[in-house]
């Protein structure tokens, strides 16, 4: 029965769409319609040509420009609408293409690393069930575990730095700072976001690594500890700005309500503002974690570049390799399955960060709903 209704619902919706489309076609100037169809067709052809790497791609693309230019002059409203739709599609398509291309390139590596789990052979399982990465000597294996370990180490340390400092700074900006100070601190922290990662890496490589090597008598200066701290500093602005948005979006009347009862500022922050903005603040931390996971250059430049798991596992005084540095370092000199394994690392990164992003969006949406109910 429910199946039935959903089916009829479907059909009704499709029918509604169809009639809507027919009405639209009927209501529109036929020439405008023709122009738009031609323009979109040309664009689609150009895209397909580009996908097929055809040298003829320029032809439909030129046609698209011409037709669209004509349409813009004659039927601006419809053409504008069609083009803006096409641009929306480009955005969706970008994500789609990323998925398709990096997954496709990673297939050979997943094939190569097929391993049997409970008697079933699972492609790619070998990347996670053993810990050897060696692209040169026998047996050649492509385990991602060492890099995942490195990424986890760096991300954990970065989060320990960025989350508390970031939330404290967000509280400061949103609730505590006098206006003048806020006008200084806020852009200051935003500018922190602007320092290019390679500049951090350069300082890390030329200053921090040699210093750490001496200050802790290390075997080489690469450490997850300091890479993590640098990456944490880089993720900090993300945490601050998103958390600050969440904190300021808590309605003022709620804070006023608490203050009017004779609660102190700090009590109002911890009992009202922070709980009300909790989802937003955790989304901020999640986004910060995502940034930290994806940070590449500082790690590439500062880490040792050997895929190995530190011993003991939590030894922060080693710094071997992360997923990102593996790719940045290896791409170009790798080929065949080795190169494909780098794409596999990219897939792991992409999927992880996408999950974090979706998770934080979900949390934020929930917060918006909750606060919306309060108003």
């Amino acid at each position, binding site marked *: 029965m429910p199946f039935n209704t959903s089916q009829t619902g479907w059909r009704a919706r499709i029918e509604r769409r169809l009639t809507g489309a027919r009405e639209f076609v009927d209501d529109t100037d036929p020439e405008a319609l023709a122009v738009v169809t031609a323009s979109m067709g040309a664009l689609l052809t150009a895209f397909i040509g580009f996908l097929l790497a055809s040298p003829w791609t320029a032809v439909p693309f030129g046609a698209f420009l011409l037709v669209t230019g004509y349409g813009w002059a004659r039927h601006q409203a419809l053409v504008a609408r069609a083009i803006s739709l096409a641009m929306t599609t480009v955005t969706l398509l970008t994500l789609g293409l990323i998925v398709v291309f990096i997954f496709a390139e990673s297939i050979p590596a997943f094939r190569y690393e097929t391993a049997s789990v409970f008697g079933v052979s699972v492609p790619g399982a070998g990347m996670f069930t053993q810990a050897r990465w060696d*692209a040169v000597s026998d047996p050649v294996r492509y385990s991602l575990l060492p890099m995942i370990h490195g990424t986890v180490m760096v991300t954990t340390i970065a989060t320990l730095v960025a989350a508390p400092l970031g939330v404290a700074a967000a509280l400061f900006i949103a609730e505590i700072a006098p206006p003048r100070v806020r006008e200084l601190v806020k852009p200051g922290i935003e500018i922190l976001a602007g320092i290019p990662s390679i500049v951090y890496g350069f300082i890390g490589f030329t200053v921090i690594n040699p210093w750490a*090597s001496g200050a802790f008598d290390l075997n080489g200066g690469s450490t997850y500890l300091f890479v993590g701290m640098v990456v944490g500093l880089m993720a900090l602005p993300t945490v601050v700005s998103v958390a600050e948005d969440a904190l300021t979006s808590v309605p003022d009347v709620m804070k006023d309500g608490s203050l009017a009862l004779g609660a102190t500022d700090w009590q109002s922050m911890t009992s009202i503002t922070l709980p009300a903005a909790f989802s937003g603040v955790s989304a901020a931390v999640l986004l910060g974690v995502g940034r930290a996971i994806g940070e590449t250059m500082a790690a590439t430049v500062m880490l040792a570049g050997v895929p190995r798991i530190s011993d003991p596992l939590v030894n922060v005084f080693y710094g071997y390799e992360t997923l990102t540095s593996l790719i940045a370092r290896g791409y170009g*000199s790798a080929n065949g399955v080795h190169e494909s394994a780098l794409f596999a690392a990219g897939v792991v990164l992409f999927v992880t960060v996408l999950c974090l992003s979706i998770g934080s969006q979900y949390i934020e949406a929930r917060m918006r709903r909750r606060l919306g109910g309060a108003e």
Partner: protein
Amino acid sequence: SGNGGDDDDGGSEESGNTMSSGSSGPSTVTAEGSSTVYPISNKGSSYWNSNSPASDGEYWGSNDESSVAGWDQIETDMNIADYFASLYGFEPSGERSNPPFATRVALSHSGTGCEAVRDGLVDIGNSSGPITAELDISEDERDENYVDHVVGRDGQPVFVSQAIYDAGVEQLTGDQIRGIYQGDITNWSEVGGPDQEIYVVGRAEGSGTDTSFRLNMLGDADAPMDVDTRLGQNQQVQQVLQDNDNAIGYMALAFSGSGIQAIAIDFEGTVYRPDPDAENTIFDSEYPLNRDLHMYTRIDEETPEGTDKREAAFLNMFLTEFGQKTFVEDVNYITLPTSDIEAEREKLPDQA
């Protein structure tokens, strides 16, 4: 030979590249690969692009105070690139900084360079390891597809941090080095040094230096290794060896510098010293780590002899006394014996 970069966005086509691109003149000669060969090739490219006039005396030609090495064999009044290009029939430009065609050298490592020349992305693939090992191909395949231009030789010394050298580690045996690089020896005290862990520095996998080291020291291009860090280019190894006081690393000769010391190596009783005047030195071709520095060009339909005129004009510059002195010896590599130079020039097409 590959293409020169005036490719279209179709990418399906591989235009061969003699002076074909119409109005723009002969296209740039591109090279890519080995960081070991890079000093030679980059310096050559810089000289070429500067197209200094013969009156310069510092980079090319002669003036009242000085003249470049090997000038007596050349004696032309043309600019440097004009001169070498004209040997293969290119129009001289006569202008400083405007060679008849430009050259460009990218830095990565040998494996990348070999692949790039194989895939037709560059004209010249620089490599410090044999292309057979880099691309895992047979010698027949090599001869069929590539022309191997050797422009100089490297002694590939093994370096240690200054502190270790000062603490008495001035010489190691081949076995000890092998032990260090395969994880059997981890403390300097095991080889007569201070009680300190060894910081074992390696080069990136796929680099010619790494390949040759495995091949010549560990016995197989795919031999297993156990290092503490792997670094992209020779220069970075040099820096890290300077920054740490317990490190060992292998590099090309050109990168010796302050704060690091090359050590003598004892191969089955023969001690090769890093000093050119010693009895057995790493400059000898008998030294097991001694290796040729290659610039590969590719044989395809358009250039059946493997080297087109632009490439030949450029490569020929290194195969002169001027070139050997300026681009090989001055950057600390080992020059080729005259007979070898002759043999190398034989591989180039006939001059105009």
